[in-house]
């Protein structure tokens, strides 16, 4: 592809073989302008993507300090304005600081026992299955929902209720244009969350210590009224949204990667202390989120081209994580890889706040899996994937937990 050609994100060949496409872009077109007008560019090299993430002047708001006009002024707009992923400094810096105790090392140490119980119970349930089962349905979708519910002090039975409104809320949180009907549905969903999570928050106030993530947020709130009730609710719903799909995909990718690389599974079985490194390698090799956007905060030069202020930068996390300029043999799945500083959680000010929780989950799961399900095999070596550009994922993963 020549540098003058526009990239079409709708082009099915991109998705047919993503990693080959990403390699082509890294090599031949590292600042690929997107149709129709080139006002968006796709960056795929590790050094470029990392640099943008760490530059505090690159922003998440398309226009500095302006909210999209079509989010209205109802509960949906409140959600947008108080959501961490949609905020820039200095408002982002303030909220992020207040939210940071939720997954600080001390809070995390207290979470270990209940996270372990949820994962263990669900691995045990798989161990009881004779024959074939869909890992996505029977584990991937369940465990993150149970963990998110426990995190928010919501009954696990409510997971479906909580999840059902997410698609309606999503359009106000992303930068896709909204129709009046979508806005009405988003406002309704936002109001549901204010009522539902608001009730939990009010009933738990004063009863949770700083070792509980919600307690930590409430105490941050109470020291001089620093985190408002609305901010607390939106943050907690944000935890649910940001953790559910990513964790489901990461766990599914982990099982798929290990079962299709028996040599790596054997290494892990022989040395369970490799579990944290194996989780990092899963996140690098099959990053759950393929693209994250920023907007150029100023004009700058890159590879001889000028990128003007306001340009949307689509940053390829999965592409950067396979960059041969940064990682040796990037297409090889190697759980003993050294210096594996991947960008699956991004970097810089918006760096995934749940990364420590995700790492705890990965550690527990990957320690347990080869011990409790040593004979597990894939029964469909070619699982189906959805067609999404940003969040590609397996829609099913058939396994035989006790082997064939």
């Amino acid at each position, binding site marked *: 592809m020549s540098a003058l050609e526009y990239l079409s994100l709708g082009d099915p060949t991109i998705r047919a073989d993503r990693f080959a496409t990403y390699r082509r872009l890294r090599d031949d077109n590292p600042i690929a302008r997107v149709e129709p007008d080139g006002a968006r560019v796709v960056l795929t090299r590790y050094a470029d993507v990392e640099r943008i993430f760490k530059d505090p002047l690159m922003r998440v708001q398309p226009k500095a300090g302006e909210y999209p006009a079509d989010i209205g002024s109802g509960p949906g707009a409140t959600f947008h304005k108080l959501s961490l992923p949609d905020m820039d400094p200095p408002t982002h810096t303030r909220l992020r600081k207040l939210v940071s105790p939720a997954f600080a090392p001390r809070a995390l140490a207290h979470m270990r026992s209940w996270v372990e119980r949820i994962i263990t119970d669900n691995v045990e349930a798989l161990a009881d299955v004779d024959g074939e089962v869909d890992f996505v349905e029977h584990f991937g979708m369940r465990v993150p929902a149970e963990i998110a519910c426990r995190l928010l002090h919501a009954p696990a039975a409510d997971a479906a209720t909580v999840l059902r409104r997410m698609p309606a809320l999503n359009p106000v949180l992303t930068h896709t244009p909204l129709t009046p009907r979508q806005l009405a549905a988003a406002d309704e969903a936002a109001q549901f969350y204010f009522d539902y999570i608001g009730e939990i928050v009010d009933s738990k106030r004063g009863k949770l210590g700083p070792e509980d993530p919600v307690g930590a947020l409430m105490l941050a709130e109470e020291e001089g009224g620093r985190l408002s009730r609305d901010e607390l609710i939106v943050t907690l719903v944000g935890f649910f949204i940001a953790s559910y799909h990513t964790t489901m995909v990461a766990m599914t990718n982990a099982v798929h990667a290990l079962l299709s690389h028996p040599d790596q599974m054997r290494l892990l079985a022989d040395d369970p202390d490799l579990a944290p490194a194996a989780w990092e390698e899963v996140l690098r090799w099959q990053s759950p989120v393929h693209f994250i956007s920023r907007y150029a905060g100023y004009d700058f030069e890159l590879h001889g081209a000028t990128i003007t202020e306001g340009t949307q930068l689509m940053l390829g996390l999965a592409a950067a994580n396979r960059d041969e300029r940064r990682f040796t043999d990037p297409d090889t799945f190697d759980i003993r890889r*050294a210096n594996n500083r991947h960008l699956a959680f991004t970097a810089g000010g918006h760096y995934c706040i749940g990364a420590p929780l995700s790492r705890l989950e990965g550690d527990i799961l990957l320690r347990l899996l080869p011990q409790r399900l040593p004979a597990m095999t894939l029964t469909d070596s070619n699982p189906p994937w959805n067609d999404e550009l940003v969040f590609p994922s397996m829609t099913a993963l058939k396994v035989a937990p006790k082997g064939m």
Partner: protein
Amino acid sequence: MTKIDYIQSDGTRITVDAAPGDTVMSAAIAADVDGIVGECGGNMMCATCHVYVDEAPAARLPAMTDDEDQMLACTEAPRTALSRLGCQLPTDEPMVVTVPGIPT
């Protein structure tokens, strides 16, 4: 502009002019100082901005918070009495810091 000196594990000294509002971490990122990664952008989640503060007006360094103390337990290089997170150190005063040699 304040001068911040970074001393690498091989003895190389890099002097950086920190801009107003910079931290020891962000000034190092802007100047591409090796060994200071600053992965989490100053959110106290990664400890990849670990430095040893060799010379500083000690009385004017901000006190260590409980969160910084917890994160310093997670550094790759050994923690010493001089250890701080670069992202928690303002650059109002000149400072000399040593960048830990990170095992790769």
